[in-house]
């Protein structure tokens, strides 16, 4: 029963983390639409099972690299709402002291090496982190999140080659949401994506990215194998983004239909699906899930209010953090 208890805790934690991501994105969307949030942002809603399923297989010391659609990875890797919303709003208490914003949001203390606004830009960093861990022999694993669009970047092939040659503990996690910005991925990707990794001799998997349990199970397995020196690995996670490429991408009929979006939300939502499973397994009741949803939403609302009221960084911070050993680069 002890094991069952652990599983129950893990399940509830995964459910809660997915709900937290959804709640965070719902608030971020509102902040953006109500013009309270500067800049631009890319919603992770719909892809929660990928970030949560994988990050729940990692320790806080294991590293991930994230993308421009990175709020979900950030939450899943252990970040708190308040510093995240502060970062989103450019406030001093943000994880990056307001210097990163939505596209570079990361809780570095939990092993997040940063969200990267260059598509595919973090593939070298993730692979380098794996090289570092291999050299240091600390057994840590690095997961490189990227989208299907990034598979068109040459850098990936360079680093997969080296990762395979040197057996680096890195997992390339491609979140294939079907769209490369405003274009159907079928239009930009020839052949098979998994075959590309396999060409380097990298063991590859293709999996339903909406099934958090399946994702987590695979991730647990591959992380363990990485720690034993069996990496690298590649996973294609088939998933779907509910919003446009970015929040302002409202009229997207030209690349996908409303019916398609409705169908994914109705029948393939990762949170609803997992909630239904949890109930059907008798792990939680419907009321329990509603209570979790309400509690998380209240947390998110409180964090938004906190962030809106918190201070911007002082102007003197503008030339701080340019060089690590120089307090003010322009002094």
């Amino acid at each position, binding site marked *: 029963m002890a094991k069952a208890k652990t599983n129950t805790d893990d399940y509830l934690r995964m459910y809660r983390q997915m709900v937290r991501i959804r709640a965070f994105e719902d608030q971020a969307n509102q902040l953006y639409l109500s013009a309270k949030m500067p800049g631009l942002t890319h919603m992770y809603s719909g892809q929660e099972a990928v970030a949560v399923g994988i990050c729940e297989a990692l320790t806080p010391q294991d*590293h991930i*690299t994230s993308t421009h659609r990175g709020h979900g990875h950030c939450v899943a890797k252990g970040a708190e709402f308040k510093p995240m919303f502060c970062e989103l709003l450019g406030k001093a208490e*943000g*994880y*990056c*002291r*307001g*210097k*990163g914003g939505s596209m*570079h949001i*990361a809780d*570095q*203390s939990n092993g997040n*090496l*940063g969200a*990267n606004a*260059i598509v595919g*830009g*973090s*593939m*070298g*960093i*993730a*692979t*380098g*982190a*794996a*090289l*570092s*861990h291999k*050299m*240091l022999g*600390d057994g840590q694993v*690095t997961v490189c999140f990227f989208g299907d669009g990034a598979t068109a970047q*040459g*850098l990936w092939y*360079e*680093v997969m*080659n*080296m990762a395979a*040659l*040197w057996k680096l503990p890195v997992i390339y996690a491609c979140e294939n949401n079907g769209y490369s910005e405003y274009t159907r991925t079928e239009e930009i990707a020839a052949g098979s994506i998994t075959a590309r990794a396999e060409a380097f001799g990298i063991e590859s998997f293709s999996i339903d990215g909406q099934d958090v349990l399946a994702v987590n199970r695979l991730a647990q397995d591959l992380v363990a194998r990485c720690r034993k020196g069996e990496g690298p690995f590649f996973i294609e996670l088939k998933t779907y983004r509910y919003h446009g490429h970015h929040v302002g991408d409202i009229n997207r009929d030209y690349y996908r239909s409303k019916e398609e979006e409705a169908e994914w939300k109705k029948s393939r939502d990762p949170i609803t699906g997992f909630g239904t499973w949890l109930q059907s397994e008798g792990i939680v009741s419907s009321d329990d899930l509603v209570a979790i949803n309400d509690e998380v939403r209240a947390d998110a609302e409180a964090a938004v209010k906190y962030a809106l009221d918190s201070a911007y960084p002082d102007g003197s911070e503008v030339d*701080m*953090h*340019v*060089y*690590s*050993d*120089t307090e003010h*680069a322009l002094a």
Partner: protein
Amino acid sequence: MREITLSQAVNEAIAEEMRRDETVFLMGEDVAEAGTPFKITSGLVEEFGTSRVIDTPISEPGFVGLAVGAAMTGTRPLVDLMFGDFLFLVMDQLCNQAAKTHYMSGGKLKVPMVLRTNLGATRRSAAQHSQSLHALVAHIPGLRVALPSSAYEAKGLLKTAIRDDNPVVIFEDKLMYQDKAPVPEEEYLLPFGQANILREGRDVTLIGTSSMVQVCLKAAGLLEAQGISAEVIDPRTIVPLDEATILDSVRKTSRAVVVDEGHRSYGVTAEIAARISEKAFYHLDAPVLRFGAMDVPVPFSPALEDLTVATPDQVAEAAARLCRGEMFHAA
């Protein structure tokens, strides 16, 4: 004091730092058994093994990307970029990733990596193996840029670069690899941001970088024969730039000639000349003159290539004209 070549000095610096700190490792194309085309790293793989002296595929963006990630996660990569011209291949990893990570993370992440590469024309290598592109990276905040002017400088600056917690790009002049200079047996470091006054003078300040320091020293000798006393300054690092030493000298001499091997337009000479004009304007008794590489792709033919780089005679003649109060550009 013993005299060794610049190539040997660099080799010593790498070996000493790798002995001192086991997180330092060397990677690049043909750095192990081949010891690079310039035979700079020969012997290192025998001492440190292939796990710390790593031959990479010909994938410059890939291995520079790996270096960024490795630097962020506990090791200190020293990357060999075979020719400075290949910088264009690695711009995203160097300028978007390495340079900005510390800032975008609000100071939480550091990138202690060194990119060793070279500059310098007149080696009959044509337009893609002869460029001096240090201004390109000096333009990007977050990177440090060192330009050793002799074997002694190369060793001391490289050791400092390896210990720096920021990304550093160090450019050696490939024509100087076999040039010998006195280098002490005992360990020493040369500080960044502290210019070296190689020769004191009264009438004109010659500011040179990299091998152009040697050009300036020869020009100073020619000027001395004409009764003109030239001060020669080597900034050592252009980021950070020791502006104070340059300005103090120009305030004393009232005249300045800046000599660098990057293209003349929009480059290092323009930057230094502009700072002099801004901050020592009322001490100037003559326009600040600049010598850079001619604004043409570097040609192959010796008859053409030799025309593109400043010579001691040209520098001396220009400096002498300045001292005679000749007007360079009529109103």
